[in-house]
């Protein structure tokens, strides 16, 4: 009799759809459920990925993607009234804030690389960039070899800084490399004539150019020196949360929604000035949309 009862109970558990959906929550998802809030880290001026528009609202390509993730979390936890806390982060504090649990997920323009993978987990890639140069249209600079003996500005702590210093050393190009605090200041250094070129991720260069007084004076040139994959950052080792994030991103990227999102931020006028970045969909991006993955390029 006892055996039958146990068997019946097991059958019941196995068949009952409601019970099966109640997968036990761990880590970040449990924390979100218990606190009723999800904390999302965003950037303040990473145009067009994550930045403030003229109404002081956070907008951008990465921000729209992370809001889809938030929707997926709401659905999964069955909490339509989940509070979303938006926390601005900088490139200096974003990793510590993930590690100490202040933010649950960061979405901006963070490169997924092997060094960082030792500290945090990255979602499926949102965007692939190449590192190139922003120069004045009439400067005569067409590519990296033209920079010999010139002043070049990079933003401190970017992969571009590492690459340009290596290039300077290896080819003894005699460049003076200025490393500015943020992208805005790098562009100011370029505009003030201190440097003749600004090396950075092409998408961000297009964003800086769009902020200029006369965007037509500036042009993005040069052979891409590296590829980088932008991903969302999460705490390390939380497979349950990462799977939810990855699934959400993959679902969007493999649907027509991805190209619509791309067109909205890279091929149409964007806030705050209504400028068009005019950055066509690259082969790397097409490849990414075909097969989403969380691989780092370096």
């Amino acid at each position: 009799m006892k055996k039958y009862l146990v068997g019946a109970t097991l059958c019941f558990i196995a068949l009952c759809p409601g019970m099966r959906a109640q997968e036990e929550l761990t880590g970040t998802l449990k924390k979100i459920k218990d606190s009723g809030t999800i904390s999302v880290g965003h950037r303040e001026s990473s145009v067009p990925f994550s930045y403030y528009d003229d109404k002081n609202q956070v907008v951008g390509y990465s921000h729209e993607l992370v809001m889809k993730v938030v929707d997926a979390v709401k659905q999964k936890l069955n909490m339509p009234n989940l509070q979303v806390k938006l926390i601005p982060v900088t490139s200096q504090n974003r990793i510590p804030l993930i590690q100490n649990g202040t933010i649950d997920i960061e979405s901006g323009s963070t490169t997924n690389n092997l060094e960082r993978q030792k500290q945090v987990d990255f979602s499926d890639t949102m965007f692939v960039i190449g590192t190139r140069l922003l120069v004045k249209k009439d400067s005569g600079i067409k590519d990296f070899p033209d920079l010999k003996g010139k002043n070049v500005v990079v933003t401190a702590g970017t992969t571009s800084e590492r690459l340009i210093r290596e290039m300077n050393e290896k080819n003894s190009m005699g460049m003076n490399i200025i490393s500015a605090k943020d992208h805005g200041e790098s562009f100011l250094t370029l505009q003030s004539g201190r440097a003749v070129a600004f090396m950075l991720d092409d998408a961000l260069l297009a964003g800086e150019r769009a902020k200029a007084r006369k965007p037509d004076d500036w042009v993005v040139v040069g052979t891409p020196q590296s590829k980088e994959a932008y991903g969302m950052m999460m705490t390390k080792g939380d497979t349950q949360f990462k799977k939810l994030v990855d699934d959400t991103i993959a679902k969007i990227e493999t649907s027509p929604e991805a190209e619509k999102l791309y067109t909205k931020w890279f091929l149409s006028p964007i806030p705050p000035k209504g400028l068009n970045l005019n950055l066509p969909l690259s082969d790397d991006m097409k490849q990414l949309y075909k097969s989403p993955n969380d691989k780092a390029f370096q």
Partner: protein
Amino acid sequence: MPILAAGLDWSIFFQPAFDGSGNYLRFLFVGFQWTLFVAVTGWIIAFVVGSIVGVFRTLPGRVLPTLGTVYVEVFRNIPLLVQLFLWYFVFPDIVPHLGTWFKQSLNPLLQQFLAGALCLGFFTAARVAEQVRSGINSLGAGQRAAGLALGFNIPQVYRIVLLPVAYRIIIPTLTSEFLNIIKNSAVASTIGLIELSRQSQQLGEFTAHWYESFIAVTLLYGIINVTVMTISRFVEKFTRLPGYVGGK
């Protein structure tokens, strides 16, 4: 604690730095040197300019004291970061020939160093001036009058009677200002000077080991400041006069 779970890895300081200059310990040491260099240069400017302005504010007459007051109010009331941007970004653009030369002929590192040292120096000078002034005023009118009665002229009264005592009285507050200028030198990282706090941020960016980097840099600033404090204690002890602050 998730931080402890991630584990602190001190071996990162012996990994090769991203710019190929050696390991990260050396990399931090370069920043340490620039911090000292910019702070000490700034301090020399601050001490000289601050002393002159402070003396101006205590002189008889109207023109020089007013000049002193204007200096102090202008440099004390504009935030340090704003002043730095004025020195580095605005002046080179509005001063016709010198500005262009500064921007295009000087090595960028030298530009950052000069802007940083001048900014810190003139900002701190306003604060030093106030201390020199209060040091002189704390002596009362009697010493000045006694000096004049002995037949000294005004420069002699200041050089022989007032300043030697006034400086001794303000050694403790000057020490605080020196400590401040060392800590304030971190603002030079915003214009790209590779001083200590900038190097620690770079270390964090390239190794992703932020906690190790912040802990190391805190210790290094601590070492500088404790050294300064110790030296200043000795100076205070050896220069004190009977009957004044700290003296017997």
